[in-house]
């Protein structure tokens, strides 16, 4: 177990390909903010939904290439740093490698399965493949039908956030699972970030809930509230107001810089960030209890 600072310094280098996965749920903003603080540049960022966390990495100048499948502010609108760095006449353009969700999920499926590519019945009569030379076709050896293929992806590091893990990184997740398992198994290095650190006996009492096994994990970071303004089911709700307000904050480089200065560069770690958010907001976002009944694992 290490601090976020140590885990990032150890795994994320200039030019690394990084993947902070989590679909709406369990997006590790704490990791993104630490990368910004350490000013690690030229990253090849991979993520289905770049969300606000990658937009912040882009604005901070950390990203040179983005592989993605839906780049918006979910339920609100646009990612403004991304737009500023990809539209006509933009300075400091970043390179985009674009898929649909299924296409990028399939890249992780291939990567996590030890296969060179993954087939999918998709992309015909769409312009997506025409603008992405990595999407190719194959003839099915059984039916002769044409299928699309995407290549395996192997990020240098995948960062997976979970609700609870033991100190070995056996990570348990409930609620939306996203592509976190496939992303972890595809990666060369895995960082597990957890809301709670629990004893291995608790993990062993409920093994079906383990999404990522400790044997493939390199570093474990205990970082409560590490996902705000995203959420952790059973811990805290999504801060929707933050996502709504972000639209205005991120529209100009000036207000964007003010935010990054106040909430990223000027805080030492996640603890200070949460303190800055303030107790009333923290209390408001705390999840209400909705417990499930356990099951009998006996034989």
């Amino acid at each position, binding site marked *: 177990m290490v601090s976020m600072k140590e885990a990032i310094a150890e795994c994320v280098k200039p030019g690394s390909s990084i993947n902070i996965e989590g*679909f*709406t*749920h369990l997006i590790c903003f704490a990791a993104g903010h630490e990368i910004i603080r350490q000013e690690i540049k030229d990253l090849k960022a991979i993520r*289905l*939904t770049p969300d606000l966390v990658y937009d912040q990495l882009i604005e901070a100048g950390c990203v040179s290439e983005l592989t*993605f*499948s*839906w*780049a*918006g502010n*979910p*339920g609100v609108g*646009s*990612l403004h740093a*991304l*737009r500023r760095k*990809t*539209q*006509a006449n933009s300075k400091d353009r970043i390179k985009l490698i*674009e*898929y*649909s*969700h*299924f*296409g990028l*999920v*399939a890249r*992780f*499926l291939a990567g996590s399965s030890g296969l060179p590519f993954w087939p*999918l*019945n*998709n*992309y*015909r*009569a*769409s*312009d*997506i493949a025409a*603008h992405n030379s990595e999407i190719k076709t194959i003839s099915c050896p059984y039916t002769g*039908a*044409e299928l699309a293929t995407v290549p395996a992806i192997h990020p240098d590091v995948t960062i997976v956030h979970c609700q609870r893990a033991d100190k070995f990184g056996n990570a348990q997740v*409930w*609620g*939306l*699972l*996203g*592509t976190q*398992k*496939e992303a972890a198994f595809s990666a060369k290095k895995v960082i597990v970030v957890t809301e709670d650190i629990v004893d291995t006996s608790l993990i062993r009492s409920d093994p079906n809930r383990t999404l990522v096994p400790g044997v493939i994990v390199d570093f474990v970071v205990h970082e409560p509230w590490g996902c705000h303004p995203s*959420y952790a*089911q059973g811990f805290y*709700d*999504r801060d*929707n107001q933050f*996502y709504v307000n972000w639209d205005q904050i991120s529209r100009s480089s000036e207000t964007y810089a003010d935010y990054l200065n106040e909430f990223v560069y000027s805080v030492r770690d996640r603890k200070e960030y949460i303190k800055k958010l303030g107790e009333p907001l923290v209390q408001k976002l705390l*999840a209400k209890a*909705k417990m499930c009944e356990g099951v009998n694992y006996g034989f």
Partner: protein
Amino acid sequence: MDSKVKKALNTYTSTELMVVRASQELANSEIVFVGIGLPNLACVLARETHAPNLFMIYESGAIGTTPERLPISIGDPCLVTGSLSIVSQADIFQTYLQSGRIEVGFLGGAQIDRWGNINTTVIGDYENPSIRLPGSGGACEIAAHSRKLLIVMKMSAKTFVDRCDYITSPGHKYYPNKDSEPRSRSEFNLPGPGPTKVVTDLGVLEFIDGEMTLTEIYPNVTAEDVKSSVSWDLCVAAELRTTPSPSEETLKKLRLEVDPDRLYLN
């Protein structure tokens, strides 16, 4: 009931009628891949009225949802609580969508053409766009695989265009190159049949021989109004139906239960 809501029950907005009309396309027990915004309202309204067993699936992996509040994103935690199953995205796109189990899909977009091709990727040139939009998400595969595909979009000549700048989601005919004639969807052997209907704020359009055709208009809207909101010469059916006004009961449900804070209705 709030007197303001009560009084307004004889009138309704075009957005409200759009949601009501879209909900009528959903049959009881159908398996629907729900999009956020107006499609979500249409699905919840259908469940509250004529389709109580509508089976809702979100691309985030929530299956058979019964959310206590209106979800703000497709990954809202309220979709998880009380759902029938939660699956990974690999499962959603493969075992649910690609396998052909999704009966109804919903799409919208920034541009649509007469063949129902949809653009949610860029305005302008792909490499050098004037506006960079979010991209496909699951839209491309929803368009490829849904057995019934409903498009929900407000009409304007800016969005109903002669040619999309980029085709994110396939419709009934595809232009392989910029200058080529469009080729029929059947040549591409896509599993799903393509767009079924477009439900708009002015009326409903269907695809006849693959081409978008106005078949139904809302009360107090003329075919000319619709034609002037489309940037090509729109086909109009010989017999044009008029959409009935929503019932008071349906409007009450929509305003008081489905979207009481008017998150999407305004």
